[in-house]
């Protein structure tokens, strides 16, 4: 049986064959031809170009009580084995055509077929082409519950709504039904960890303020950094150890040291020198390079660190205080009677430095800081590094 096909259709088949195998199924979908017509088209193309193309045949029939569908790679194979394979033959058709030189395997042919998937929204058109019409395609309705933060909301039993089905047979691709709601919402509340930390710190503060905790966590690391002997001085410009504690502590609880401090309020700090040292140590540590300068004979010749004195002739004299040279901000040294080295219960040594002279020179380290920095810079330019002696901390006698 021959059918008339347009030139365009025949051209399409041969153009497609240049690159890949062409099946009746693909022709039917691409050219909107019925399956029967596409099978005839393939047969016609094969008959007219047997030397250039090779065909894969499909035969259907019965063997015993079974329905058999057999693929024959070539016409010779078909002619030789047809009667052996079937008791009764229903039909033979050409499954695919390809150029003889291409030599494409059946697997690649099958992959080519899958590259033309069925568009489920256009099923009606495929029915006209030969697809068996099945039940109407309907999507199952899904209800996506909104994500709620409140735990109470989770306990509520949301009744299952009746499954409403939407049909897509109308041909439009309009999506109806619930819209997918991503849990990654744009207005994102603070992340759980941050939120939890904040809540924890707030809760901790509240707890500490409201009630007396049965157990208060004390970090051993903080204990090491805190000096055993401490002086609580007014107008303290140094960074208070409490704030250091607050910065250094990794725990979520904000340490409330008011009670800790209150423990020391009644303490009798009779060791002035040791207190001064403890006060000065951080400053002295910072000014370590200054100590290097002091070792130089030039620097040693220079005046020790002291508050600048205003000449007597100076007109600014009247603006100064009557004090002889001491800064009013400097604390008066305590009269500390030297004590012996002691060991407390935890095994910490308390050393007391015995000095005879007063400590005006040491008492104004800050005022002379600027000068010291300048001298320090000049000293550095020499390129010499000398080891600092411990005595340099205390300056010249």
């Amino acid at each position, binding site marked *: 049986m021959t059918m008339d096909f347009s030139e365009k259709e025949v051209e399409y088949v041969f153009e497609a064959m240049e690159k890949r195998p062409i099946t009746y199924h693909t022709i039917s979908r691409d050219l909107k031809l019925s399956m029967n017509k596409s099978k005839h088209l393939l047969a016609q193309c094969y008959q007219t170009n047997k030397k250039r193309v090779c065909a894969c045949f499909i035969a259907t029939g019965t063997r015993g009580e079974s329905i058999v569908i057999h693929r024959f790679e070539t*016409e010779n194979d078909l002619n030789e084995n047809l009667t052996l394979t079937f008791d009764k033959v229903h039909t033979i058709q050409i499954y695919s055509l390809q150029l003889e030189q291409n030599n494409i395997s059946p*697997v690649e042919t099958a992959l080519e*077929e899958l590259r033309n998937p069925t568009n489920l929204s256009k099923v009606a058109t495929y029915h006209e082409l030969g697809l*068996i019409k099945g039940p109407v395609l309907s999507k*199952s309705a899904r209800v996506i519950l909104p994500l709620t933060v409140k735990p109470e909301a989770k306990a509520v039993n949301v009744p299952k709504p009746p499954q409403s089905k939407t049909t897509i047979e109308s041909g439009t691709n309009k999506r109806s039904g619930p819209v997918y709601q991503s849990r990654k919402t744009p207005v994102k509340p603070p992340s759980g960890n941050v939120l939890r930390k904040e809540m924890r710190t707030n809760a901790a503060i509240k707890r500490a303020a409201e009630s007396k905790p049965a157990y208060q966590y004390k970090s051993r690391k903080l204990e090491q950094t805190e000096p055993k002997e401490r002086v609580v001085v007014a107008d303290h410009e140094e960074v208070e150890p409490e704030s250091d504690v607050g910065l250094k502590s990794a725990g979520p609880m904000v340490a409330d040291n008011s009670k800790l401090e209150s423990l020391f309020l009644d303490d009798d700090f009779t060791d002035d020198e040791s207190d001064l040292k403890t006060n000065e140590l951080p400053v002295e540590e910072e000014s370590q390079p200054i100590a290097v300068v002091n070792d130089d004979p030039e620097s040693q010749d220079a005046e020790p660190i002291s508050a600048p004195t205003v000449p007597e002739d100076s007109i600014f004299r009247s603006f100064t205080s009557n004090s002889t040279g001491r800064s009013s901000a400097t604390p008066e040294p305590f009269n500390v009677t030297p004590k012996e080295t002691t060991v407390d219960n935890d095994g910490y040594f308390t050393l007391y430095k015995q000095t005879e002279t007063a400590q005006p020179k040491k008492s104004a380290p800050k005022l002379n800081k600027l000068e010291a920095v300048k001298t320090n810079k000049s000293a550095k330019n020499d390129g010499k590094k000398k080891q600092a002696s411990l005595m340099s901390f205390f300056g010249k006698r």
Partner: protein
Amino acid sequence: MNHLNKNLPSTAEAVRVESSLAETYPKDSAFLLPSKNRDYGRQFFSMYQQRLAMLKPRVDREATRKWGSNTREVNGKLIQHKQKILDIVLGELCWVSGTIFSDMKHKLNILKDVEKGTDDLMPQPSKKYVDADNEAVVMIEDESGRAILHNEELLRKSHLVTGCFVGVLGIEIQAGIFEIMEIVNPAPAPQTLALADVDSSGPEEWLAFVSGLSFGKETDLDPRTLLLLQWLSGELGGEDDVAAAKKILTLVVVGNSIVENEHEENLDFTTTNNFGSKNTSKFSPESLTLFGQWLNEIVATIPAVVMPGESDPCEVCLPQQPVHRALFSQNAPYVGSKNLVTKSNPTWMQTNAGLRILACAGQNIDDICKYRVGETSLEETLDIMEQTLRWQVFVPTAPDTLYCYPYEDSDPFTLDEMPNLYVVGNQCGGGSRTVEIGSSSVKLLSVPAFKSTGEILLVNTKTLEVKSVLIE
């Protein structure tokens, strides 16, 4: 080529008959587990207790009916009924009922793994639990004790495996060894609807069963899957083929739709770093994509029911829950609708006419086959299927050698109802057999793995007639 393009179907639209599978029916959720509150910390003895509670009265009833208790004679000896196995007296003809336990050398044994120090690794599944040199030792046990059963011929024919609850008649020939003469199975459960009561008038309606599609890499795509697809959709073949295809109401995929990735088995745990191997995924997205594309074409023309199998991305334990919709890619919107239904493995199904179908992806039969030496033929597969129905437990080896969920209040694998059609997928060959169990007539259907055979089976829902479609 006389038949080239002969007898092609007519150009008129072919319409498929509406689906014949009921949407809601008894036991439609018999194997569904709760999505939350699954407790895997329970012991399995509860399952055996439930099985005992369900089957012991039925076994005792059958045994009493057959052997009596001090009422019948065999060779001048009265048959005694012993309530407990420990009551068996040497040389006395008696019958007892109990659970079968089969001790085998290559069965997984956690105590041996602990002894070797390999208990923290996933054990490699054995291909066979026995070999030619080490046969199984079959025992019967109850709450009081255990006795070894002896009669090689009878044990081989009966295919007894761990988990069966039977009654045995015999004599204790030696301490602890019970020579058996007969075995009695539990009284079979009734059928909800007999085949004879089904109205067979009206147009023919068929169900198509396929298993073992085993979609893998693109380079391994089986062209026969496309031929199957085109035949089912009526685009391939002649008028007779379209006439057969449009009578198929539903395609049931009985497991193993995708194939697992092959891993090199590295059993060297001492010199190599074997740690990461257990974290490698067995599934590739390529196989899921291919299966999704194939299923998309199917759904356009025929409703489909998909069950998970051993190689599908589902849990290992039975019952395997329905495949999650997220794994169906472009078909996900249709999951749960009439066009695409996902079922558990195993599952009960029911036709609109009321016929009951029990389908399983084949792990139960495959595990029983491991209790035997050698390859299993189609006939032996059907024999084993028949035996599972006679034992009234169609997954008897769970939980001993087959992973399963630790049920506490029930044992869904014990039958309290006989199906009309019993389907097992992914077997070596395709075939069917009708068996009479009690007053019930059951059709056994062994669905072959499509990857190896290219065969699907069609079942008439009114007559349970079976046809085969072979794609070569």
